[in-house]
């Protein structure tokens, strides 16, 4: 695919690398026993350790280590049996210790690779450089007071995985697909909930531009972008900004920038202007993190089916198209919903309904599939009702609407609203006879315009409230009016 951007001086190539900060799913923090749950009252989930009080010491959370290994395995990456925790030293109000415990030269996970799926059906491999464990910082609130920032340390010390990609992406779409895929893999693994709104997953995006074939250009890092949409917007803006600078004859300055979603622009970060020297060194309060190959193997045994494997299975087991399977597995919740729905019904029909009706309704309601008002089991049941000719496809749409509004199950809806399909041919025949009798003009015109048969079908459905078995209706009409069959 040609991703080149047209500039005044010719085509430009975009080079993107992404650092994702993913909050690990764990009950307690990386080095302390305080809670990680979201949305608690400020400074309540803070221990003396998280507040950097004198004499406090870190002790590592075993589950966070396992989660990092699990994620590394999910990224097809090398797991390092020996890794080191370093201190990254800098002063900031939300960094109580004056350093962040992170991993610098020897991370827990090394090189890996994931495959991203693009909208045009193509796929591409994106390299993973490393994954390491580190502490999150606290949060400063700036709108509480004219001259003070308010510091809340609830997040301070929460376990993060920083996942660093190779600079392998060449377009905003690829960058978005990469973050989506990464998020999806972690959701499958249950190592990160992927919730970008709550900040469980943030992306730092490194963007540079170059003429095709040239060496890498100077990059700018856009910090803490927190939605897939913004990732796209930020890259588009930043690429254009850099191209403009170079085409005007200036040089791009290496910078840390922030994306402003309201303006759709990136801007230089004031607080990061000062040049940094983080003075990394191994944290003397901790020891090297070591584990055996067997330990990794035990974790490997617990890995769930990952999206790529699941897609393959959907194609082979359920006969779905590659395109449809891809849509289903690209969100774990959708794939889970699908598999729940097809327990007793036709996979292809269910897939069509999810991708068609369900998605369009959810879109309109601005809801995700986790909050879908229709239970997967009920959607399966609805499709069964169509499949075994209990209701017509047209009625099914009405039932679907009622399910959305009431949350009731389709069988009781069909029962109580008398929506069952009419299969009785004599009953239908009587209705058709009446229509023929009342519309002699249309009957006469039929010989000229055979397409008018559709009008009779419509009338019949109208008379039966859409409940007539369409096959039967067609058969009878054909026999009576076209002397066929």
């Amino acid at each position: 695919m040609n991703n080149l951007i047209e500039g005044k001086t010719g085509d430009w190539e975009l080079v993107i690398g992404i650092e994702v900060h993913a909050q690990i799913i764990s009950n307690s923090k990386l080095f302390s026993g305080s809670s990680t749950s979201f949305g608690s009252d400020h400074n309540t989930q803070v221990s003396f350790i998280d507040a950097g009080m004198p004499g406090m010491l870190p002790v590592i959370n075993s589950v966070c280590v396992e989660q990092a290994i699990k994620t590394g395995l999910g990224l097809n990456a090398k797991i390092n049996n020996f890794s080191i925790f370093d201190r990254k030293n800098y002063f900031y109000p939300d960094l109580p210790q004056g350093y962040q415990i992170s991993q610098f030269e020897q991370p827990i996970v090394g090189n890996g690779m994931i495959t991203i799926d693009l909208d045009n059906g193509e796929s591409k491999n994106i390299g993973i450089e490393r994954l390491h464990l580190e502490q999150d910082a606290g949060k400063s609130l700036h709108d509480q007071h004219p001259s003070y920032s308010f510091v809340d340390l609830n997040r301070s010390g929460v376990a993060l995985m920083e996942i660093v990609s190779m600079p392998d992406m060449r377009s905003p779409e690829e960058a978005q697909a990469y973050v989506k895929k990464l998020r999806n893999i972690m959701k499958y693994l249950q190592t990160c909930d992927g919730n970008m709104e709550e900040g469980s997953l943030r992306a730092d995006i490194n963007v540079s531009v170059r003429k095709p074939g040239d060496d890498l250009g100077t990059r700018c890092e856009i910090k803490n972008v927190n939605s897939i949409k913004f990732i796209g917007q930020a890259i588009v803006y930043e690429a254009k900004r850099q191209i403009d600078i170079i085409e005007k004859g200036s040089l791009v300055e290496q910078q840390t920038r922030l994306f402003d979603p309201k303006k759709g622009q990136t801007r230089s970060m004031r607080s990061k202007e000062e040049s940094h020297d983080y003075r990394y060194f191994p944290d003397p309060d901790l020891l090297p993190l070591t584990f055996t190959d067997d330990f990794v193997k035990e974790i490997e045994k617990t890995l769930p089916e990952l999206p790529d494997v699941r897609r393959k299975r959907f194609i082979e087991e359920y006969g779905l198209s590659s395109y449809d399977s891809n849509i289903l597995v690209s969100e774990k919740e959708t794939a889970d919903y699908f598999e729940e729905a097809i327990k007793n019904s036709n996979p292809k029909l269910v897939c069509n309904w999810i991708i068609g009706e369900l998605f369009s309704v959810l879109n309109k309601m601005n809801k995700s599939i986790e909050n879908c008002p229709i239970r997967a089991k009920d959607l399966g049941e609805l499709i069964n009702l169509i499949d075994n000719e209990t209701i017509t496809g047209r009625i099914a749409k009405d039932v679907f609407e009622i399910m959305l509004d009431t949350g009731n199950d389709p069988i009781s809806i069909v029962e109580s609203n008398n929506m069952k399909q009419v299969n009785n041919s004599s009953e239908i025949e009587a209705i058709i006879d009446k229509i023929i009798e009342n519309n002699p003009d249309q009957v006469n015109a039929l010989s000229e315009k055979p397409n008018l048969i559709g009008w009779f079908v419509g009338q019949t459905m109208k008379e039966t409230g859409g409940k007539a078995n369409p096959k039967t209706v067609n058969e009878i009409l054909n026999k009576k009016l076209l002397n066929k069959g």
Partner: protein
Amino acid sequence: MKKLTELCLYEAREGLLNKDFTSKELVLDHIDKMESSRSLNAFITETPEIAIKSAEKSDLKLIKEENGELEGIPIGVKDMFCTKGVLTTASSKMLSNFIPPYESTVTGNLWSEGAVLLGKLNNDEFAMGSSNETSFYGPVINPWKGSNDKIDLVPGGSSGGSSASVAANIGLGALGTDTGGSIRQPASFTGTVGLKPTYGRCSRWGIIAFASSLDQAGPITRNVRDNSILLKSMCSHDTKDTTSSSKEIPNFENAVGRSIKGLKVGIPSEFFLKGMSNEIMEIWDKGKDWLKNSGAEIIDISLPNTKYALPCYYIIAPAEASSNLARYDGVRFGHSVKSSDINEMYKATRSEGFGDEVKRRIMIGTYVLSSGYYDAYYLKAQKVRSLITEDYSKVFKDVDVILTPSTPSSAFGLNEKSDDPISMYLNDIFTVPVNLAGLPAISVPAAHDSNGLPLGLQLIGRPFEEETIYSFAKIIEDCANFKNIENQWWLK
């Protein structure tokens, strides 16, 4: 009967168990002594109310025979240990208003064994110093005087308040911390017994950090037996400290008096320093003879990298300190200077809150970790440290303990060395290698120099073999028959 403040810890323990006196009587006498000894400036915070209350509780427990191992015993605690509800300053302006809402593991262990807190003891600011002169609360005065009694002497450092208070019989023992010699050097300067346990023996949780890979808490007492008793109660396996050992904690007291027959003592040739005084050489020789006469074998050994220990230490310790002290930023606790700009606030707070020596070490530490210098200094020092550790592991295949002087001199005068950092750093030349290698070591008073001042000998042991050290230390103690201070000139 002896005055209660003249008893040592094990004598007081016996007296309490025999109901010869109550803990309250014992504690009140010590409080009197503490108050009449203020000219030594050993205490930053006196806690008489807490002491009396705990003593009363202890007396009840003693009556009911529910006593802990240190029931009713008054001790002092270096101001590096966080004590819940009691001002804890690290002898710094930076923490001059800090009242911890938590208790360090080591002090917590002592209280649960019934020990009584007399007060918080002065030290060099953030334990950085060898003379107790860097304290924001002023220097501690050594209760010992040389032949010229007009000269005030330093008690050593950084645990200067601990050593001085024990030498002056204010408390039956004291807690110190030792990062490069901060227990052993002051013990040597004050004629007291000071042990730095194996790294990992005592929990570091709740002790204000100076250099995390070197810091270790330990006891200072008036004799070896007291030391072993106090150590036992300090130790625990602490799940809150990654570097706290889960090794079994022996009853160290059992080792006091144990024979050393057939055991081997190493004498490292590298500890013979050019220009070292004859007195130090003589006392070292005496020590050898005492141990030999008690059945030990003396072996000459070599620790070839000894000369690099001090420079190695003066890279690693400041590096760790520069990072450990970053949390003092005026936001969550401690001294704080107001400003409308966060960076100005940090700078003003830290420039005002820290004293010169602390700033100097933060600067060195920041420098050796900074980009472009890390490999040449910090990484290099950690490699040299591996060599030093290796020297000791090799030697300990052949010997059971190593005997050296504790310090290159006896106590010096106040302000004598405070302007020259390196000559001050050289005080720790015999003690620093032990911290780098994480080993246990003790300083035992062995003699008085010609000026009448105490000199100590140091015994270094294998990791977690404090018992062996105590057995040897007891022999030296018995042979030296060291006489404590006679003229309590400082009493008001």
